[in-house]
């Protein structure tokens, strides 16, 4: 069971005439929750987009479930895409649909479940992410930031993915909501047996719920390991990144 669900090999990306990634390699084994950190502009989101098949890296390969993502024909790529879920930074809920309709979209498009079962599933996912049922018939614009993220998570989870990509899941949330959301994510990852890659800036997320952290700096992976080990490392950027928090924790 310990094969790598996601593996990036020497990914190199050129953006605006400069190399953004100069050979990024990492692997995520099944069942692990991995954090991806790096200064703003080091290409975390770009790397995430390359892993989910939205942006082709200039060089290098990305393997998802053992398949080379960028050499797959579109039909196979879309089949692979059904096996993972993505939580975008702003949620990316369709604003003209209600929460329940948003969550139901993947089911409508990819399965031929009868409407009764579909509604039942949608209701279950909405409760699974901790939203009240009254929220199901609201438009995304009527929800708070935390509820939007939860609704987006319900949509990402509805096809029972094995792998979850999250782009800054706690950005824009107050610390209490962020902590609750982290807790929810951890519970869901453990109970649903999910593998997750989380691009984040949130130190609480890192200390609280991540098994391993990958640090992106200068276009390369400069550290990769459990959070306490990485935080104790010698690299200057990592030290100043964790400095405030380490002090706070004593």
């Amino acid at each position, binding site marked *: 069971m310990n094969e790598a669900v996601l593996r990036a090999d020497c990914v190199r990306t050129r953006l605006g005439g400069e190399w953004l990634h100069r050979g990024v390699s990492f692997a995520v084994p099944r069942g692990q929750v991995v954090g991806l950190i790096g200064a703003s502009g080091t290409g975390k989101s770009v790397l995430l987009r390359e892993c989910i098949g939205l942006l082709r890296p200039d060089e290098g390969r990305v393997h998802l479930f053992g398949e080379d993502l960028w050499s797959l024909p579109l039909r196979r790529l879309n089949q692979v895409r059904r096996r993972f879920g993505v939580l975008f930074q702003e949620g990316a809920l*369709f*604003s*003209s649909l209600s929460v*329940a309709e948003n969550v139901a979209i993947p089911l409508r498009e990819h*399965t031929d*479940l*009868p409407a009764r*079962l579909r509604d*039942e*599933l949608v*209701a*279950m*996912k909405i*409760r*699974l992410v*901790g939203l009240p*049922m009254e929220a*199901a*018939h609201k*438009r*995304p*614009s009527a929800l708070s930031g935390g509820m939007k993220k939860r609704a987006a998570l319900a949509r990402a*989870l509805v*096809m*029972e993915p094995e792998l979850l990509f999250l782009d800054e899941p706690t950005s824009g949330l107050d610390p209490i909501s962020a902590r609750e959301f982290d807790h929810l994510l951890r*519970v*869901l990852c*453990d*109970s*649903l*047996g999910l593998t997750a890659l989380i691009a984040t800036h949130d130190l609480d997320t890192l200390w609280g719920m991540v098994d391993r952290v990958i640090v992106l700096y200068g276009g390369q992976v400069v550290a990769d390991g459990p959070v306490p080990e990485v935080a104790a490392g010698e690299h200057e950027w990592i030290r100043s990144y964790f400095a405030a928090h380490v002090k706070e924790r004593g």
Partner: protein
Amino acid sequence: MDAPELERIPTEAGCELRLRGAWCIDQLPRVDALLVDLEVPHDKEVRVDAAGLTRLDSAGVMILVNRLRAQGVVWSNVRLEHFNSAQMALIHLVADRLDARPRPPRRRYRWRAFARQSGHALGTRLSGQAAFLGRIAEALWDLARRPRLLRHRELVTQLQAVGLAALPIIMLMTFLIGVVFAYLLGVQVQKVGANIFVVDGIGLAVARELSPMLTAILIAGRSGAAFTAQIGAMKVTEEIDAISTMGLSPIQVLVLPRLLAIVLVLPLLTFVGDVMGILGGAVVAASQLDVTYHTFFQRLQAELPVATVLFGLYKAPVFAAAIAFIACRNGFAVTRDARSVGAYTTATVVQSLVAVILINAAFAVLNPDIPR
């Protein structure tokens, strides 16, 4: 993938359910069919055995829990056997979150409420229009007292976008209309041998109706839609709020340059349209109707009074003001969702075309005399 299976074995204490195969979302209808007709004694012990289970996901757990509960089984009394730890965690999470699921209320359509809401919406809409008109008037009054408020750069940009950039299409369209009109009119006047009268017809039609209308319609579709989309997009990205918090008036910054630009430019474009339309007519007259260019323009000078041309040009600023008002008002009405910008842009085009045609009709009714 192995199909889901279920075996029901009666025991002394109650019954045992043996699950086999994949209980997951791809097989959900089958899982549902297995459980829906199952008879489970709700007052006796129920055991669920997972020895033959190959896959389980939250959808499968949901069906299991919901269907057993529907039979009156108390879930906490169900004994789970041979599930691995990951499956147990999944079952506990789902069963925990699933309890007491209220049905979402069905929405009923009520005519009375619908009528009341529509009336209310119309009322707020009209009062909103009036308020917007008031704000524009206020901004214009401010501008008249303090001309330095005028935003030159934005005005010039808009003059270029609305006027210069639209010039080629306006010239082409009015020229073609002149050609078509002269051709059709020519066929008629040739029958009575009154070829020269094509000049009177073209001059009158182009200067009084065709050029002002066609130009206004083109600009409504082109610039009106652009105004709504631009202002709407700024509303979505909170740029308009940013303008307000900097102590500037969004009307002064966004609406007045557009309004002034379109009011200044539309008469000019209409005049260009007059010239091109008549030119188109002259080309047809020369090539098809044996009316030389010299005769054509001599006759035009004699037969087309300046008052007719001016009448066409007077209409243009009124059209322009209506288009700018509708377009900007709809731009500010955009809300923060993806469909809104498109919906309001469509509304702008439709409303401004209707407005242009109504205003034109009003002009025609109020000035029925054709000057000689």
